[in-house]
């Protein structure tokens, strides 16, 4: 059980960050279907930097600092990449779903291409040592060994950064002038414009923020679960999109949705660690449990979406290009 919770945190936190990334963009009125591509680009930038720095021994004594720098780099990579979406969706007023799909394809191809071009032997895998980033602290180890294992021993700094992003973005969206204006641009841009808000600027900020968090989320996803990045995040960006819809574009509900999906996703890799599931596998050798647990997160998403989509609270002008001259 402890192992399961610790594993599911590795899935929950990136889902949370990337879904919040999508939220910033959709709140401002741009559908960001390119989350998958943003994650790939961010993960590529971050892991490539870590790979190179670990090779030359840069910041060997301070791995957490290296992690923070590479996360910022991943975010910047994502933000630059998302400016392509911003240009397409805000300035050119093109179809955002198609543009986002194009960026997903660009992201996947670019990451593999660059990895092959800049690595010896045309290798796709960018390998890195992720064990040095583990917090590995003995805090509370004597009193609550389980909590120590989950939150301090096996955890990464990314866990706390994810929670920080959740709190900050909740405050920003609900308690600041910027947040209200951002939401106004997604709900009714004409009204926002009539009171003197520059809709284009707010949409651009929304998209760039989304790109930064999306790229960062990509690295947060790639780092703990593997020792190499292979140019794909396995449909995680789309899962985050589903989390966003299930969370009804509200940060706290997005967090709950992320926990739900993250648990299912973790179950698909750790189901054998549960005794009762192991017993079931022994009892029914003909039932393909592996396949069932792999499919389960997607099916659960579908079911939840079917139940919640009827009374959707999506930003009303999300996906509709804004034309200044037409008003």
């Amino acid at each position, binding site marked *: 059980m402890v192992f399961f919770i610790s594993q599911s945190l590795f899935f929950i936190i990136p889902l949370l960050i990337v879904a919040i990334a999508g939220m910033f963009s959709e709140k401002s009125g741009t559908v960001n*279907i390119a989350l998958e591509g943003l994650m790939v680009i961010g993960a590529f930038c971050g892991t490539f930097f870590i790979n190179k720095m670990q090779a030359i021994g840069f910041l060997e004594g301070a791995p957490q600092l290296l992690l923070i720098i590479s996360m910022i780099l991943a975010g910047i990579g994502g933000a630059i990449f998302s400016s*392509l979406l911003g240009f*397409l969706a805000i300035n*050119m*007023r*093109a*179809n955002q*779903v*198609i*543009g986002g*799909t*194009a*960026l997903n*394809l*660009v992201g*996947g*191809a*670019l990451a*593999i*291409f660059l990895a*092959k*071009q800049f690595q010896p032997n*045309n290798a796709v895998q960018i390998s890195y040592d992720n064990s040095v980033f583990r917090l590995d602290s003995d805090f509370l180890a004597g009193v609550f060994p389980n909590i120590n294992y989950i939150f301090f021993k096996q955890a990464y700094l990314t866990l706390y950064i994810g929670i920080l992003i959740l709190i900050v973005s909740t405050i920003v969206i609900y308690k600041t002038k910027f947040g209200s204006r951002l939401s106004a641009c997604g709900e009714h841009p004409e009204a926002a414009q009539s009171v003197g808000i520059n809709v284009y600027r707010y949409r651009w900020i929304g998209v760039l923020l989304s790109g930064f968090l999306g790229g960062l989320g990509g690295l947060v996803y790639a780092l703990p679960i593997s020792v190499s990045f292979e140019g794909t995040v396995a*449909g995680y960006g*789309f899962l985050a*999109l*589903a989390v966003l*819809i299930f969370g009804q574009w509200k940060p706290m509900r997005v967090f709950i949705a992320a926990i739900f999906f993250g648990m299912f996703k973790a179950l698909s890799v750790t189901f054998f660690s549960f005794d009762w599931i192991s017993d079931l596998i022994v009892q029914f*050798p*003909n039932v*393909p449990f*592996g*396949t*069932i647990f*792999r*499919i389960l997160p*997607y*099916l659960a*998403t*579908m079911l939840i*979406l*079917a*139940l919640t*989509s*009827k009374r*959707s609270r999506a930003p009303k002008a999300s996906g509709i290009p804004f034309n200044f001259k037409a008003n």
Partner: protein
Amino acid sequence: MNNVLKKIGNFFKNLWAKIVPFVKKVWAKVLPVLKKIGKAIAKFFGRFKKAEGFNAFLGAMLAISIGLIMGILLMWIIKPDNATEGITRLIKGTLNNPNGVKAGIGVLLLSSAPLIFTGLSVAFAFKTGLFNIGASGQYTVGLFCAVLVGILGDSLGSFQWIVAVLAGMAGGFLWGAIPGLFKARYNVHEVITSIMFNYVGMYLVNGLLTSNFLKTRVVDGSNNRTIKVDQLARTPYGFFDELFPNSGLDISILIAIGTAILIYFLLNKTVFGRELKAVGLNRHAAKYSGVNEKKGIFMSMAISGMLAGLGGALFILGPNRFNLGNAYAIENVILTPGFDGIPIALLASSNPIGVVFATFFVSHIKLAGTAMQSVGFVKEIVDIIIAIILYFSAFSLILTQNLGNIKKFFHKFKRKKNTQDVAFEAKEGDE
């Protein structure tokens, strides 16, 4: 010596003096003719300009050229030494085939057939206002159903390949129908459902193939791929065996082109197709005018899935070169043909006939990618080019619609330049 030079100089001077008036005379005669021809060309294209397809065609050409230029620039930056050879191979594409042009065209057509189907699948959904990203999953499920019939359906005799194709269509139909159902009944966005079903389909197919029952019958354990389908289940070569010998081309390309024409007629000449298009243009208006819009959404997703499934079935049933057959590798990776369908459909502006030509272009450039590898370029460069083309075709329609504005802009620019020139000349005159 000087005299000689002078003489020669004078000779040329005289000649020049004679030539200039002559050229002017001829030019005066030719110019009206040229103007007439120009007007005729303008008129000819003007007729197209009124047609809906012209802007789309222009937009596609624009997107393709931008994509190619960007790709060439990228190659130039990365490996300047090999760039010339690489670019030549990129442009030659199909013609890189070492066995000659004929074999090259055969391979091009062979690799085009599945892509035409996935392109048609995406294009059909687009025409009815839906975005089917799930062509990949539908393709995989169709492929799986065809494999099952192709390997286990021995008792079907010479009908085996036809039944296998139909089974593939049914599989794709089912896999497209589920997102359609979710969209029509529960209003879940089809992009998310269909992308989810890519993964569900892939994991399900892989899980079923590795299950106890099928593992021994359908899968070749030594390389973790499906075994080749029975001889009777393979699509026939038809007359292509003689036309393009040893290219492996079978009749699937004919079926693909036939399907494209069929879909064109379905969308434009039948009540059913018109209703589907009406649902796509405005769901509420269609409902108001008596169309069952929920059925429309369901059917268009299902037919879209069926097309992708047909593509998968025809791919796996293809005999390939020397009748060796195709195989499906059991890896947890989503198959790419489904995703290739998206740029194809967009390049063609969702026109079913256009899909065929767009597919030829994409296959051509993909074949170039394989050929470029031997001169030190990674073949993913082609994927980048295709993605850039997709990116620009997303707003090329807007660009071509605003072509008039761009023209106006250039005219303004010209006028400005002219006035500048005049001012400059005036200054010179003053001096």
